[in-house]
């Protein structure tokens, strides 16, 4: 297809765990990303959601080749970039930018805003200094900052304004793809709304493609066209946002949606809550087969802990999930939670 911008196949990133007295030998690996595949079309937003430790940030860094993936293919505009050297990557860097979570930590505090935003232009040798300045000022205006603030330092700005600077920096060289790693999670709600609106406006204006990584399901729903849910380095469900949020198929997605507090007390009281017990297991030694099985309310012994479920289509058009017993109804009814283990309890709120 012509408008496929990025195709990812079987992406893995394992961090070695070594031991040894003099010679370090690898005894194990942290399976941070363990087989992720997806396609993203030009102009769309793919939301990636999951709890801390699910590998979403590591995946983002692999996609931009900020770290080397262990395995898998990353095809950008029809070209496999997973094996490219740093040098070969350089021209491609103009196409892909990243916006980080902590707007303060990701900006050089000793540099003026003008320099920070213009740096990418300079690195890629774009434009003369005078043109650069004009470009930076127009960018600052685009992201809703005062162009006069060109000569200020990052500490003179509030958190939301710093995130705007981060976005202006990412936009400077007209990228196609922007990977946003938790761009609003450090911000207050009112400021968060400003940034989300800004990202949406910019997408319309410049035809940007976003990969939007966040732990906040509300935010992901708001901004994404399609959403991928990750658990322990693997995607468990991938669907359009409406389908994912109104008819989730994977029990983990169901648990996540059920756990998000709704800012509507009347609705909240009606809701059946499935509280997942326990913590996310250690990615060094993840559970066998379906790695969600020890916490799953629909666990079937002898199946889920033996056979690994593959991502497969469950509901017509491109709604995929990796589960042997996908949810049939949403919201989940207590009857639907077939396996009633003592550790898992349906709690009505």
């Amino acid at each position, binding site marked *: 297809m012509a408008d496929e911008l990025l195709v990812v196949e079987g992406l893995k990133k394992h961090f070695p765990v070594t031991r040894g007295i003099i010679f370090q030998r690898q005894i194990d690996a942290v399976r941070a990303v363990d087989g992720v595949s997806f396609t993203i079309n030009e102009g769309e937003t793919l939301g990636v959601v999951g*709890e*801390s430790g699910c590998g979403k940030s590591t995946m983002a860094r692999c996609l931009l080749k900020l770290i080397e993936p262990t395995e898998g293919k990353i095809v950008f505009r029809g070209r496999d970039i997973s094996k490219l050297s740093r040098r070969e990557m350089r021209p491609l860097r103009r196409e892909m930018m990243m916006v980080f979570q902590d707007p303060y930590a990701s900006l050089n505090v000793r540099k003026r805003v003008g320099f920070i935003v213009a740096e990418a232009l300079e690195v890629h040798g774009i434009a003369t200094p005078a043109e650069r300045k004009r470009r930076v000022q127009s960018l600052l205006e685009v992201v809703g900052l005062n162009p006069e603030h060109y000569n200020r330092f990052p500490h003179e700005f*509030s958190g*939301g*304004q710093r995130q705007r600077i981060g976005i202006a920096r990412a936009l400077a060289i007209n990228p196609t793809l922007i990977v946003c790693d938790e761009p609003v999670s450090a911000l*207050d*709600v*009112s*400021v*968060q*709304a*400003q940034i*989300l*609106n800004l990202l*949406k406006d910019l997408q319309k204006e410049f035809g940007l493609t976003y990969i939007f990584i966040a*732990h*906040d*399901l*509300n*935010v992901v*729903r*708001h*901004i994404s066209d399609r959403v991928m849910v990750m658990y322990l380095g693997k995607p468990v469900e991938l669907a359009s*946002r*409406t389908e994912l*949020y109104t008819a989730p198929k994977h029990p983990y997605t169901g*648990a*996540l*949606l*059920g*756990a*998000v*507090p*709704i*800012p*509507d*007390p*009347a*609705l*909240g009281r009606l809701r059946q*809550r499935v*509280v*997942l*017990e326990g*913590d*996310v297991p250690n990615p060094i030694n993840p559970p066998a087969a379906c790695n969600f099985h020890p916490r799953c309310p629909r666990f079937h012994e002898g199946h889920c802990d033996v056979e690994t479920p593959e991502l497969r289509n469950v509901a017509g058009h491109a709604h995929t999930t990796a589960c042997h017993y996908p949810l049939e109804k949403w919201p989940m009814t207590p009857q639907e939670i077939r396996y009633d283990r003592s550790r898992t309890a349906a*709690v009505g*709120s």
Partner: protein
Amino acid sequence: MTALLEVRDLRTQFQTEDGFVKAVDGVDFTVESGKTIGIVGESGCGKSVTCLTIMGLNERRNTTSSGEVLFNGEEILGASGSRLRSLRGKEIAMIFQDPMTSLNPVHTVGRQLVETVLLHNDISKAEARARAREALKEVGIPRAEQRVDDYPHQFSGGMRQRAMIAMAMINDPKLLIADEPTTALDVTTQAQILSLMQKLQEDHGTAIVMITHDLGVVAETAHEVVVMYAAKVVERGTVDAIFTAPQHPYTWGLLGSLPRLDAEIDRLAQIPGQPPSLLNPPRGCRFHPRCAYVMDVCREKVPELMGVSHDAAHEQACFLDEETKTREAARLFAATMAAGTSG
């Protein structure tokens, strides 16, 4: 019956190099036994400082507080150090935002629980240890007998927050102040912690002050809500009143800027600008520079908290007339309300 906690006209200011910061500027609320009150607002609105002031935990050197804090009818603002210490951890307990840093890394979890018991009870160390084990069991730590001797770093984030809750509840306090207890946690862990707190509240009849920026958490846990903006209370009422008939434009802004799980909204209603500096807050209503409904009076006069005509328990501090408010609220929330009722 008198309220468990009554806060009247509480003011706290810090002396900084740049001048006085009025972090809390005339806050009133009451907490009834066994109920949960949610205090919401964005960072820097004074919600945490309010609670630290109640506990007497502000730095003494550069802080001055005034007003009244009545706990069971007893004035505890400015009470002696020893009186406050006998209340803290015994009658009033507190849990904090970051469970990763709120436990002392060099002591075992058990030792920290035992310390809390021994500070307020004249019992033997062995009895205190037995209580510590019981407390860990009650908050759902698996294999509590062994894990009592673990160090905090051996616990996951959710477990540490459970341990913090165990430590807070171990002396069966009447009031639990929870300062953003789930903000640092993942959503499934947050759900665990919130149900645990709810269960403990039912079992022990503890009153909870829940400080949070998350309106969802407030909606699910609180009976009453206090909305704070720039060190002042702008609105307060029952949870249903605040969420179904909000009266203050700031509350509208907060609700409107929230992406919703239960509704698809194309564009969020954002509040323009930034929260003001408390060093030099705006004259008149502190929200007026960001308010879409600003009138001349808002720039001059400070609005007082006033009852809403049809609901005496619902108070708000805005000069707009009720008719406009009802109309605007209905217009602003048409989308989410419709989605809410249909979903």
